[in-house]
């Protein structure tokens, strides 16, 4: 038999959409029938395939939810830090992020108070991250101010030295006057 079934026809047959011509072909072609059987076996193996189960990496982790909340909040903190000192609308971005975080905390707290599912660890983590975020902001600002002050002092020193050097050069060119 020359014209064997195409891959699509074989799959259609497996999925129960066998056309009349395919059925006729299969009655006469042992190769195609065998191929379809081997595909069926592959499908069964895939459907019953077992994979290693999820294993918590750190036994000390309080809850899986906390891990996700921490991950999401770290991204917020990094975004806040970068946004604060890069884009032209740093102040707006900061305000947006702060509002987002506050809304999230307020919503979660309100639900907690109304007797919803216990998400204390997540809320605590968010509050902690909020504090951490503020501390980071203050620390970063202090560092920047120190850097600015140091740079300013160095600029003044360099300017003074340049002025002195210019004066000395002028004097050495015209020692008589």
């Amino acid at each position, binding site marked *: 038999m020359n014209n064997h079934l195409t891959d699509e026809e074989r799959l259609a047959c497996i999925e129960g959409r066998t056309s009349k011509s395919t059925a006729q072909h299969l009655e006469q072609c042992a190769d195609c029938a065998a191929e379809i059987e*081997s595909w069926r076996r592959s499908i069964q193996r895939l459907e019953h395939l077992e994979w290693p189960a999820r294993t918590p990496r750190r036994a000390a982790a309080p809850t899986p939810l906390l*891990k996700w909340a921490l991950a999401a909040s770290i991204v917020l903190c990094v975004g806040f830090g970068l946004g604060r000192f890069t884009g032209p609308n740093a102040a707006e971005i900061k305000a947006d992020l702060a509002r987002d975080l506050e809304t999230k905390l307020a919503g979660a707290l309100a639900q907690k108070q109304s007797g919803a599912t216990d998400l204390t660890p997540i809320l605590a983590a968010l509050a902690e991250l909020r504090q951490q975020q503020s501390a980071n902001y203050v620390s970063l600002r202090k560092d920047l101010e120190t850097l600015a002050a140091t740079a300013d002092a160095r600029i003044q020193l360099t300017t003074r030295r340049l002025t002195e050097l210019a004066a000395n050069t002028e004097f050495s060119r015209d020692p008589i006057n």
Partner: protein
Amino acid sequence: MWRVQSSGDAEAFARLVQRWQDPIHRLCVRMTGDAARAEDLTQEIFTKVFTRSKHFRPDSKVSTWLWRIALNHCYDELRRTKRRSESALDEDSDFPSVELAPDAQTASDEECALVRASLLRLPEISRTVLALRYCEGLKLREISEILELPESTIHSRIAVALGQITRILEPQLRDHDASRPKHFPQAVL
């Protein structure tokens, strides 16, 4: 999802994670073959989901959106891994031979190990359609929405992928069965 999207609702996000972390982790394992790496990938995917929640369109399905983010993240990871190990790859061989995992003890374990290894040797798109169709049990229409391809194309891709994995698996399983002793000697008491 709209609660996460509109107000960054922590509880809603926690519920989303609870509902989807296992399916997303399973997909990551099937795509990468590494359970520990899949754990990291799952975490990264949910971080992406959280940060991109404002881009979610309310007229689309959450599941479709999640699967798409997860798959794209897996593809990125596979490309990074491939770049790292490119020099070590055998360019001449499309389907290098399968090594059984050392923990494969029983016949069933060995067969599972062979199927897992065979799946990992398929091209990304073949692995994707087989994982979504037969491991996760998604319908053609759902896979078509996730991959943004016509259903007819998905049907063809699945057919090609089934042909590929069968061509890898069948000879290996035959050899494997042939090498297995048919009759075990009876224990002498």
